[in-house]
């Protein structure tokens, strides 16, 4: 995994770049400005690209930011579970065929399906329970 995230090319999907920057921010001790992020990425991305990505991630609630000097310093949203939840809701939802990739335990039900299911599970159920 490490090798993959370090491998930067011009055609990297946005999700991968965001994940890379998130990992970097998670490993940093303090909040980082776009300049510091660019520097730590080792020249793979332009400063303006980093600013764009950080702004977008902030808009998605993946990052918090505080003013520092003329720029903002960005830090990941701290609680791990909340972070995972937000990632699932935002990054993957951009993909049109996400549902074909995520294996959901139980699909959504129509109202008739729900009734049918209640009956299947409990055939003895009395009407007007």
């Amino acid at each position, binding site marked *: *995994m490490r090798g*993959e*995230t370090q491998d930067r090319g011009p055609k990297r*999907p946005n*999700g*991968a770049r965001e*994940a890379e920057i*998130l*990992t970097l921010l998670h490993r940093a001790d303090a909040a980082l400005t776009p300049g510091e992020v660019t520097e730590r990425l080792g020249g793979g991305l332009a400063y303006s690209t980093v600013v764009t990505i950080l702004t977008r991630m902030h808009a998605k609630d993946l990052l918090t930011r505080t003013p520092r000097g003329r720029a903002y310093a960005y830090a990941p949203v701290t*609680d*791990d*579970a*909340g*972070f*995972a*939840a937000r*990632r*699932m809701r935002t*990054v*993957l939802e951009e*993909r*049109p*065929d*996400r549902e*074909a*990739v*995520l*294996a*959901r*335990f*139980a*699909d*959504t*039900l*129509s*109202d*008739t*399906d*729900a*009734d*049918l*299911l*209640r*009956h*299947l*599970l*409990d055939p003895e*159920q*009395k*009407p*007007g*329970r």
Partner: protein
Amino acid sequence: MHVAVYVPLLLCLPAPLGARPLAERCEPRLATWLLTASALVLGAASTVSLGLLAATGLLRVPQLAALGHWSAHTAQRDAPAELSVALIAGLLLGGALVTAARMLWRRARTLASAAVDAACMPTRDGLVVVDDEVPDAFAVPGLPGRVVVSTGMLDRLDRSERAVLLAHERAHLSGHHYAFVALAQLGASANPLLRPLAAAVTYTIERWADEDAAARTGDRGRVARTVGKAALAQHSRPAPPRPAGAALGILGFLGRRGPLASAGPVPRRVAALLAPPLDRHRILATTTAAVLVAATLATAEATRDLHLLLETVGVS
């Protein structure tokens, strides 16, 4: 070539009719393999057929013949298909290749981004618990993949039911079910007639994971109740005052097959788990295998015929 080239195309027509019986009556693991293989083989064979037909058309274009130093006249005389057929085949071939390539590219990107997401999720034994009231649970494919469960879902399940849910989601990951879905959808994107096969695969992988969870926990009835409970927990509408009465009336009137035939995947999964386990349906499996062998042989035959035609017209 006059006949063989059309065989794979014709075999795609009844394929959708076989999808449902395979999904409903055959042991789910075998059904998944058969459906995925069918979508792939028929998708590939029908695409090759379109390519062969289009090639016979190209051979007859005088300008191309002059460029390649072959005889457009002989091609015209010996061509197995009308020029219009070749033209239509060419257009369909273009469409098939473009949609298949787009599907493949898109899916590869989604799977890659899911893998990155999975790797970024903090975890203990591949399980990610998300602090969220809304009940939800799913598996994210990756290297390794992750099972994501919300606290809302965990709160609604007891200990044994949680074990069922985890066994089900882990079966998806360890069985590489996303790959079956992707390959079946690839075949269907090359040939839209095969879409019912791909749709059936998304159902049979759920059945496969259900039966896997049942084998692991040793109780099919409990798996049925857990699937139902989880689905009902996610269903936004609360139970109406007299749900069972209404359903019971319909069920009693139409019999057990009636409402289930048109029901969504969850009630069908639950019903399948409450019924005795399915065996490997010999007749269905043999028929499917025969169809796939016929498609492959016909493609080989048609390709050999095109090769002979190329030699006759003098393509070096």
